[in-house]
């Protein structure tokens, strides 16, 4: 009886010993790296070489310098969400979506946003859909010498691209890719409750503050998963010995905290037309007097959505394929969340190759 018991117990004791040793080493590393963490800045983000070729207040248009010997005929314009900075798509070399596209031979432009200035509080949805996007498209045409332009819209950048595409269905947009783009705003349940028209006086807010402060936007995102911020800090401390973990944490955390304010009038329209009246879904949306009917969009469409997206749940995004007028339309549902769909280790394996194979066929 004794012999087998002691034989099976011995490896466990050795494993426990190793575990303790490893934990002690990590504890020491945590102390050393913890000091380093606070004494150093994070990795440089958004460093893929680019030129600003158009700048108008809150809007910047970048052209990324090609990294392939031969590029596809049709240039690609990425429209970033207005609440966040575009460098989420250009993290560090090896983890940059932009770099990936450039190496695959795409000619990449990005419409990125900066914080609207106080005098830009009066920017309306029209200024974005009928001003900024068409201006960028024209500049891309002029810069590339090509009449056609492919467009990728991320999150609300997708909504803006859809509005643009529905108002200008005859081009020059040739193909459209949307990442996690909401259509049915009723299904964004918590945002619906945050903006409940019975209690949320959007007019009073906008009239008082002008541009909606980034803290308000950030806290509404964080409230969707209120425990996650605290847990991520605990996980950071646990993994602070791991340089790769810390690097990744810093990249995503910096980006998430770098939320942009929203122009007041634009926010008022989003709240009233989309959150309250769900006009995009109900086919009653108009921008500057132009009806924005999704069924008018006939260009090929790829919609990539994330299985575990807590910001744009699948139910809010799933109707795009049915509503769009295109015959060549594809929806891909990938594992991941709102951000990990487009950036990070999982995106490299899942979304990026899918997008490359879909878009390369439509870029000549």
């Amino acid at each position, binding site marked *: 009886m004794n012999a087998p018991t002691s034989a099976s117990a011995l490896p466990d004791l050795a494993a426990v010993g190793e575990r303790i040793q490893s934990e002690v080493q990590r504890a020491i590393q945590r102390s050393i790296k913890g000091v380093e963490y606070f004494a150093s800045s994070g990795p440089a983000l958004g460093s893929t070489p680019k030129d600003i070729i158009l700048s108008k207040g809150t809007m910047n248009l970048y052209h990324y310098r090609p990294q392939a*010997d031969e*590029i596809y005929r049709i240039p690609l314009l990425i429209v970033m969400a207005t609440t966040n900075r575009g460098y989420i798509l250009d993290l560090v070399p090896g983890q940059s979506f932009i770099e990936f596209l450039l190496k*695959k*031979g795409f000619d990449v432009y990005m419409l990125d946003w900066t914080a609207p200035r106080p005098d830009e509080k009066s920017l309306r949805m029209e200024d974005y859909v009928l001003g900024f996007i068409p201006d960028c498209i024209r500049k891309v045409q002029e810069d590339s010498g090509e009449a056609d332009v492919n467009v990728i819209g991320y999150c609300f950048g997708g909504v803006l691209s859809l509005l643009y595409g529905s108002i200008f269905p005859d081009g020059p947009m040739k193909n459209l890719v949307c990442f996690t783009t909401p259509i049915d705003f009723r299904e964004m*349940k918590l945002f619906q*409750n945050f903006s409940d028209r019975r209690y949320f006086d959007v007019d009073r807010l906008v009239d008082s503050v002008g541009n909606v402060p980034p803290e308000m936007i950030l806290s509404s995102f964080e409230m*969707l998963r209120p*425990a996650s911020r605290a847990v991520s800090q605990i996980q950071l401390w646990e993994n602070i010995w791991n340089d790769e973990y810390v690097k990744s944490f810093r990249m995503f955390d910096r980006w998430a905290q770098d939320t942009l304010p929203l122009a007041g009038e634009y926010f008022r329209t989003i709240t009233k037309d989309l959150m309250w009246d769900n006009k995009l879904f109900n086919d009653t949306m108009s921008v500057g007097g132009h009806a924005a009917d999704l069924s008018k969009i006939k260009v090929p469409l790829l919609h990539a959505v994330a299985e575990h997206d807590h910001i744009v749940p699948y139910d809010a995004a799933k109707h795009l394929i049915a509503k769009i007028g295109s015959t060549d339309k594809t929806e891909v549902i990938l594992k991941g969340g709102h951000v990990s769909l487009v950036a990070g280790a999982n995106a490299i394996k899942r979304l990026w190759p899918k997008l490359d194979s879909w878009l390369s066929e439509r870029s000549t």
Partner: protein
Amino acid sequence: MSDKANDPVQVWHTMLAEMEKGFNAMATQVMGTEQFSRVTHQLTGASVGAQKTVGDLMERYLVAMNLPSRAQMVSFGERLNAIEGQLNEIKALLNRVHGDAQDNGLSTPKPPRTKQPPSATGGGGSA
């Protein structure tokens, strides 16, 4: 598997993940209620109102003290931003017209737009 179950670090991780999930689920339920919406917006409304009143008073105080008000500083910032924007435009124009000797890539010819998808070339692309 049994090692994992007995590993205190693993147990801690599992517990943390479950706590996060549970708390988020509970908070989501609470935040989904009408009461939450009402109370939050009452508080936000009061805070916005107070902010505006304090802002107005402060503005008057600064004028009385012969100090620049926030609006004046904002306007100053706007003018600086406008100048910065114009400088960017001039820089972009200069880059375009003259090229840039310091590795800005614009002086080098653009690659040809002749790339074909892998399916057309029978396999992997060139880059």
